[in-house]
């Protein structure tokens, strides 16, 4: 009985994954092998039954199309590039914050962690929209700089790639901070003292001891930021410019502007396959860590 209970407990996440990830994904894969048509639903059936003949119609044209139009290729490349740079920026901002929180005394620590997570409790959309008001030509930053007299013409920031980086760093910062913090807070203080005792000045101790020992947290944080950033739609749509090419935007356009579900599905499938590579590398690394 308890064995059954334990099994059903383990089954819950699996059922969840099957219902809300695997089934939709299979549907998307299916659609990616169909042809577009102006109907409801806007794609053809794969299996048809007519005149006593079962026809299976697998259309690989959508995938072929992705390779012929280099818009898609550049959209993938650009997404990965933007996600990569944004992840590095998030790491550079997030690591010192995580470090400071881990070094704080336990009362302040909880308050600081709260502050890191608190913004996530309001709507993602609203928070990103707020950045429009901050970055636009007559927004907070430009107005402040002009009134101080540092500039006399507003610096265009909104609708640039820079704004996309700001948005991603801002939105995904907690996902970088938390795993690194969880790692640093476990760091044994006597290791740092031992390094100092052996003649290592603080900055060197950081590079030789703290940083290598927080590698697992850094990798986890980078994955948590990089993977969703690649497919990000809201941030490039609201903050990015016309030239900011990201696969999430392309996906949206195919689905809703062109109503070409099959091509859009093919784009989504390829994106997933591309993301599988870093995910498996990450998992390989994690299991190696567990063995060691």
């Amino acid at each position: 009985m308890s064995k059954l209970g334990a099994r059903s407990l383990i089954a819950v996440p699996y059922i969840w994954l099957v219902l809300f990830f695997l089934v939709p994904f299979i549907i998307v894969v299916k659609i990616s092998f169909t042809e577009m048509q102006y109907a409801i639903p806007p794609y053809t059936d794969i299996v048809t039954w007519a005149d006593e003949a079962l026809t299976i119609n697998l259309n690989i044209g959508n995938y072929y199309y992705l390779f012929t139009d280099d818009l898609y290729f550049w959209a993938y490349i650009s997404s990965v590039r933007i996600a990569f740079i944004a992840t590095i920026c998030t790491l550079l901002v997030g690591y010192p914050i995580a470090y400071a929180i881990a070094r704080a005394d336990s009362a302040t620590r909880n308050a600081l962690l709260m502050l890191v997570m608190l913004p996530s409790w309001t709507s993602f959309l609203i928070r990103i929209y707020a950045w429009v008001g901050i970055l636009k030509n007559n927004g907070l930053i430009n107005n402040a700089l002009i009134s101080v007299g540092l500039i006399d013409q507003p610096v265009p920031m909104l609708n640039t790639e820079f704004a996309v980086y700001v948005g991603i760093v801002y939105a995904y910062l907690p996902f970088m901070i938390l795993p690194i913090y969880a790692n640093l807070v476990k760091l044994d203080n006597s290791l740092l003292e031992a390094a100092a005792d052996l003649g290592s000045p603080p900055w060197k101790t950081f590079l030789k001891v703290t940083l290598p020992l927080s590698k697992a947290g850094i990798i986890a944080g980078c994955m948590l930021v990089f993977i969703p950033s690649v497919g990000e739609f809201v941030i490039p749509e609201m903050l990015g410019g016309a030239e900011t090419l990201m696969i999430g935007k392309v996906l949206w356009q195919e689905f809703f502007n062109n109503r070409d579900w099959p091509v859009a599905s093919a784009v989504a499938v390829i994106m997933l396959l591309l993301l599988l590579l870093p995910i498996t590398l990450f998992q390989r690394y994690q299991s190696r860590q567990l063995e060691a």
Partner: protein
Amino acid sequence: MSDAASPMLEIRHISKRFGELSAVNNVSLTINKGEIFALLGGSGCGKTTLLRMMSGFETPSEGSLLIDGEDVSKVPPYQRPVNMMFQSYALFPHLTVAQNVAFGLKQDKLSKAQVQAQVDAMLKLVHMTDYAKRKPNQLSGGQRQRVALARSLAKQPKVLLLDEPMAALDKKLRSQMQLELVDIVESVGVTCVMVTHDQEEAMTMANRVGVMHEGEIMQVGSPSEIYEFPNSRHTAEFIGSVNIFSTKVLHVGAEASQMSCADMACRLTVEGGVNALEGAQLEVAIRPEKITMARTRPEQEDNWVQGKIHDIAYLGGHSVYHIKLPSGMIVMVTTTNINRHAQRLTWEDDVYLYWSAASAVVLYQ
């Protein structure tokens, strides 16, 4: 122990306060070159705090600290010619044994070959050459300790600090490593300060012992001095077991002094004079192994009591007897079990206990 007279470490009126709490209180201490010095004391007496001030991890609230004649009170840990072996060993988990030992050497301007040579020499010294490529989590507790020792000796520090060096080892390994550690430290010739709460460990390993209590040093001396001539009740009780008689001074003489004691039928005599006036209250300590036990009354006039055997602990090599005096006081006596078939005294036997005037120690604090 080359030149015992020259000091390596001088501690002058050092104090450390954590808020209201005074962890170390006006301690002065001189530790000589090549000496193994043990700081011994109960939990929370400030041993670790004192050691951490030597390594630089705590700054003294008052007082100064000199290493080889140089005031290092304001020098940060990474610039002190001192290395510490941490209680938890604090080996870097991401580095191999060899890299751990090399860590400190790489901070100095040494060539790769020099670092390698020193690492090899250190690993050889602690018999860990075969384990150079292992990570710390692939070692046993004793092996980790050897690596930690090699790492803290690698930079040839002027002073080696050991914080509870044996705490993480099991009992058998502990006594073996105590002797081996002393061998290694003496072969290198480094001055060594260790902290321990285990009096046996301090006695086994150290040339001199400093007994600490509530942030102060109570007594400093060789293990035998501390054991045979404790100057305070606290030291006497902390090091080994002891019987303490409360007495009143009757007569102070140059050869011998006499006291009366409520627990004894006769007088209590100690060798030489005592530093007290007649009529003063004094405590006198007698170690259990200094007392002889017999069925018949001894011939000496002073220094004996009569009682009943209350309890016996047979410990193989020796036995501990608890004798209850008519006054209710319990006196401990140890006897060596020399003869296998001896007719031993047993429970409820009436016995006489006696000792020589030279065995009694007057405690002034």
